[in-house]
């Protein structure tokens, strides 16, 4: 491998002793350690790297950094592929598999390049106009065809199995960018003892000092960078984060940052990327400035680059640009031409629209402009129009220098608007617009090296003062301090298409057409043309596009204004944002103490909030959940069953005012409850609707234990905290969750006593009683409550004994011909009894709706009482009813709506809806609970259940919601 375009002796970042082999579109290439994909391909003479978004024009590299709009590629790794990777940011590694994207056929002969011929028809807004008729064709034909042809890279379609990471960091001072201003600021703050994070998206600090190679204190800039870094690395209070792009600025000093952890290596266990949330008391934005191109006809060929891109590729990687034409409207372009020529690069022409009167070592064309380029897949000639006519100048590289845009996106994320600075022909952010965040150096408009160094120090000193840290002793080194002059010159109008936004294929014509069609606001122009909406977010095109718009509308640039900058500054993979959140990491899994035993018994687990609960416990020979569920229900009704009910929320309420407090949160009166007794309770929201139900046990005169439903445990705790802290903080009452302290099991059925006795527990409790008990010295609690309608007990033991107790209870139940039962059976048992869950207490029902209006005590205030008595909540309500199929064998479904028999299934005729259903082995048919208009007065009426989703229509009889043992004799025992 010859790497014919590697310049001898150049390339600060590459190690020529370490060749690296990689492939591009399957072809083998060799580069050096430290190369990016872009620099390695350029060094090999491969200028063509991509096809453009819309017209499939041949494209190459324009930059040497993260702003690259054109050279976007796919990186393949095993079954994975990452699209739209900027070739300028992808470091090469042994075996890297990079491929061009957005093409049909080979990169050099893309069949979709036909779009380019069709460009007169494909300009901005073309699909709004062209594909209007016939209307039906849009969805079926036009849109799918356009979508296939548009877009850039493709995803693999496979799960991304790689590791990603997210992390938090905190510091006094975050410095974004490690160029001259960032390094100077870090040195200043580091010496002063501030806790500093210095983040750079580059692989090493230095910024444009590594591209422009100015002299600092008489030595080459890289030596100064090395010395500064040596000092910074010796300071324990300075943390350097390389390959880290700060992506967003958020409220109160929070920043997002994306670290490319291992994208520069073959895939491994290491995270590919890490998304950081950095919290900083102050931030300095030393993000530099981005050069912008000049729009001229055919300015998008491979080989047309930004001047800074040419310098960067040359100095950092030793890429030889060949013969270079520089087209510049400002002094930095001239500087770049001088610097390149001094280092041995051949400058074929310096073209400047200004009347520059200089004599250089290369041909200078003042008051001239570039009017076109030639070279199908790579630049060959540049057409230069000058005083003497138009010359075709042979060149391999055209370097565009259209001025500099300070990189102020992060300063705008919180809403601050930048201001137009005519001297720079750029927008800048005044230093006081964003509290806690200060632009410095080129980002603040200080473009010379010396000015950037000075400003870096000064902004750091100001930040230190704000942080109450004293100024350190520091001297700013001498460096180049050339003045900067620029002429406003944005586009060459010489016929043909001149590109503004290379990533989204937007030309000057698109922008002027938008203006002609009335999209004169910059925000409208952006959306109509899609300028600035590509992955690069218009980094190189925004200001030029709005300048062209301003010209078309006759408004000034300042009046036209910029579009709004929003995070992220660079593309962030969703995988990094969601790191750790896949599979088990999605949410904590709350496991019962009975979990292992249930799984060993073959129980499928279902999620209940964060908890995992057994669905049913299949026995040999049972082939469906129904068989297991039916058997479990039957055994509970005839013998005994055991279920883990630890998921119910448990809140310990203590204090002399505990009863008074519970009277305020419950509708019924808990203060009158006798110690050793349990009462069913209802809580309302303040708007009068039911929030939750549960039991309240009085364990002692000043000690209550409240249970909540599984789903509402957190909500009820928060609510009780609110009532306590907002309305009665001075009372003698204290609340604490004890959900996790106790494992609690329900034993239900006619033989529940016998099951307990097998464990040596005396079931000597009346219905709704509770007491403490000792299990061989282990403090436990026994409650006699029932959610099944059978005689039932709940035993609570300290959680560490839960697994052992569940084992013992299951064994005892089986010895009494009973069984463990799961959520399915639990649901059937409670539906048979008309007991409520959050299917019924769904947030839109009152106590009266569910038949518990009598539980709202008349004699006291409680949360929600006043609102529950609003006139609108008292009449013509949908009330809780039971539903039984008229034909016994028919299945019911929850979520179905109810209509009078002859009425159509339309909203106007709706009579109510079904909330829960259960196949009842006890009654031999499906049962439903639901709400029906004035339902309590309609028992006996036949109504139609209509399930439009399952296409099910069933006639059902409205009945009392308590289907089984309405007197409750069985649970009282």
């Amino acid at each position, binding site marked *: 491998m010859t790497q014919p375009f590697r310049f001898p002796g150049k390339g600060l970042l590459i190690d020529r002793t370490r060749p690296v082999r990689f492939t591009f579109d399957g072809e083998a290439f060799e580069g050096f350690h430290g190369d990016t994909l872009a620099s390695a391909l350029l060094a090999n003479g491969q200028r063509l790297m991509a096809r453009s978004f819309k017209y499939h024009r041949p494209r190459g590299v324009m930059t040497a950094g993260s702003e690259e709009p054109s050279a976007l590629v796919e990186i393949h790794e095993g079954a994975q592929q990452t699209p739209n990777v900027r070739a300028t940011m992808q470091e090469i590694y042994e075996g890297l598999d990079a491929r061009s994207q957005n093409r049909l056929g080979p990169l050099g002969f893309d069949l979709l390049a036909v779009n380019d011929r069709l460009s007169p028809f494909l300009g901005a807004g073309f699909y709004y106009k062209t594909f209007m008729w016939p209307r039906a064709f849009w969805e079926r034909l036009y849109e799918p065809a356009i979508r296939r042809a548009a877009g850039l890279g493709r995803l693999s379609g496979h799960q991304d199995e790689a590791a990603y990471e997210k992390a938090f960091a905190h510091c006094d001072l975050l410095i974004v960018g490690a160029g001259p201003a960032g390094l100077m600021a870090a040195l200043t703050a580091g010496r002063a003892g501030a806790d500093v994070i210095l983040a750079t998206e580059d692989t090493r600090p230095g910024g444009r000092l590594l591209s422009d190679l100015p002299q600092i204190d008489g030595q080459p800039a890289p030596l100064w960078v090395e010395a500064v870094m040596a000092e910074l690395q010796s300071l324990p209070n300075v943390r350097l984060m390389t390959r880290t792009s700060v992506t967003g600025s958020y409220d109160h000093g929070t920043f997002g940052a994306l670290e490319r952890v291992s994208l520069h290596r073959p895939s491994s*266990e290491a995270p590919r990327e890490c998304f950081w949330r950095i919290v900083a008391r102050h931030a300095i934005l030393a993000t530099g400035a981005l050069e912008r191109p000049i729009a001229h006809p055919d300015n998008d060929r491979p080989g047309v680059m930004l001047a800074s891109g040419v310098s960067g590729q040359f100095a950092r990687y030793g890429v030889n640009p060949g013969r270079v034409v520089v087209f510049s409207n400002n002094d930095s372009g001239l500087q770049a031409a001088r610097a390149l020529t001094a280092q041995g690069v051949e400058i074929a022409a310096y073209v400047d629209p200004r009347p520059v009167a200089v004599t250089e070592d290369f041909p200078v064309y003042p008051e001239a402009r570039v009017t076109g380029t030639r070279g199908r897949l790579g630049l060959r000639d540049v057409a230069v129009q000058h005083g003497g006519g138009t010359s075709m100048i042979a060149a391999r590289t055209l370097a565009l220098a259209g001025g500099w845009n300070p990189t102020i996106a992060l300063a705008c994320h919180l809403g601050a608007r930048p201001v137009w600075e005519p001297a720079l022909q750029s927008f800048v952010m005044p230093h006081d617009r964003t509290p806690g965040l200060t632009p410095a150096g080129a980002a603040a408009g200080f473009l010379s090296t010396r000015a950037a160094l000075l400003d870096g120090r000064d902004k750091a000193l100001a930040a230190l003062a704000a942080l109450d840290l004293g100024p350190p002793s520091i001297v700013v080194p001498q460096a180049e301090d050339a003045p900067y002059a620029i002429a406003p010159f944005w586009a060459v109008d010489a016929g043909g298409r001149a590109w503004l936004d290379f990533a989204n294929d937007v030309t000057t014509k698109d922008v002027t057409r938008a203006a002609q069609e009335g999209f004169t606001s910059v925000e409208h122009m952006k959306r109509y043309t899609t300028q600035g909406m590509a992955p690069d977010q218009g980094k190189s095109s925004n200001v030029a596009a709005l300048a062209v718009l301003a010209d078309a509308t006759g408004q000034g640039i300042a009046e036209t204004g910029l579009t709004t900058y929003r995070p992220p500054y660079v593309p962030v993979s969703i995988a990094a944002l969601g790191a750790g959140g896949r599979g*088990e990491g999605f949410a904590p*899994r*709350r496991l019962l103490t009975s979990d292992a035993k249930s799984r060993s018994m073959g129980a499928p687990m279902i999620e209940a909030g964060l908890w995992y609960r057994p669905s049913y416990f299949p026995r040999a020979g049972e082939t469906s959940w129904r068989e297991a569920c039916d058997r479990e229900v039957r055994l509970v009704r005839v013998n005994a069953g055991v279920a883990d009910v630890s998921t119910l929320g448990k809140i310990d309420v*203590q204090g002399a005012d505990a009863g008074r407090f519970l009277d305020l949160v419950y509708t019924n009166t808990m203060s009158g409850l006798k110690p050793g007794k349990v009462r069913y309770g209802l809580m309302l929201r303040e708007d009068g609707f039911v929030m939750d139900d549960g039991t309240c046990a009085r364990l002692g005169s000043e000690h209550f234990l409240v249970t909540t439903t599984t789903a509402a445990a957190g909500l009820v705790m928060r609510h009780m905290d609110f009532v306590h802290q907002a309305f009665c903080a001075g009372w003698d009452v204290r609340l*604490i969750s*004890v959900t996790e*302290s106790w494992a609690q099991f329900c034993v239900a059925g006619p033989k529940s006593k016998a099951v307990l006795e097998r464990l040596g527990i005396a079931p000597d409790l009346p219905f709704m009683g509770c007491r403490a008990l000792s299990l061989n010295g282990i403090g436990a609690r026994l409650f006699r409550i029932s959610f099944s309608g059978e005689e039932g007990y709940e035993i609570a033991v300290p959680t560490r004994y839960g697994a052992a107790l569940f084992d013992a209870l299951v064994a005892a139940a089986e010895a009494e011909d009973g069984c463990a039962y799961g959520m399915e059976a639990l649901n059937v048992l409670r539906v048979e009894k008309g007991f409520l869950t959050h299917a019924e207490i769904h947030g839109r029902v009152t106590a009266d709706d569910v038949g518990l209006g009598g539980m709202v005590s008349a004699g006291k205030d409680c949360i929600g009482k006043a609102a529950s008595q609003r006139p609108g909540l008292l009449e013509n309500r949908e009330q809780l009813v039971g539903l039984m199929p008229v034909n016994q064998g028919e299945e019911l479904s929850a979520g179905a709506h109810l209509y009078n028999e002859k009425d159509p299934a339309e909203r106007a005729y709706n009579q109510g809806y079904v909330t829960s259903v259960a196949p009842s082995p006890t009654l031999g048919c499906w049962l439903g609970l639901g709400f029906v208009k004035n339902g309590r007065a309609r028992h006996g009426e036949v109504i139609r259940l209509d399930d439009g989703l399952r296409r099910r229509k069933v006639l059902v009889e409205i009945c009392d919601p308590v289907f089984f043992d309405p007197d409750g004799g069985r649970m009282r025992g």
Partner: protein
Amino acid sequence: MVNLTPTAAFTGLPLTIGRATLTAFDPGPVTAIAPYPGRDLSRALAPLSFPAPGCVVDGPGARLVWTGREQAFWMGSAAPDLTGLAATTDQSDGWAWLTVSGPDAVSVLARLCPLDLRAQSFAVGSAARSMLAHMQAIMIRTGEDSFELGVFRSMAESLLHDLTGAMRGLAARDAL
């Protein structure tokens, strides 16, 4: 009468990955203490005292760890009788405890927890309530590089999953 044997909250510990180690530990009896308004607990708690927010008060055989608004955990021995002074609740079983230690302990936690873990903000010998991944947690800094962590006992397995994931990522970074 049934004889119940206890189950440990964690299995598979201690565990070292890279430069961090997880070790389960038994904090002994844990009692939540929530003083009623206006009560003076100083005599009842002596020689310990009720901790200010974020503080841990060490005493012979026991410590008082601040764990929330108007609440502290008495850890290590049976709490004194505080009848009429404070609500007390046994929390010995409600939490799963482990220690994360080693040179990467801070980095491991920084991958799960939004808390400022710098020594000036979270000093050795102090306590914090915060979140680990999505779990409510009690965190006690016992050394520059060691922390005691408590989460709801039912979430012990998730805590291990998240901690070991962070540890593996850090170890793999070292290998780059």
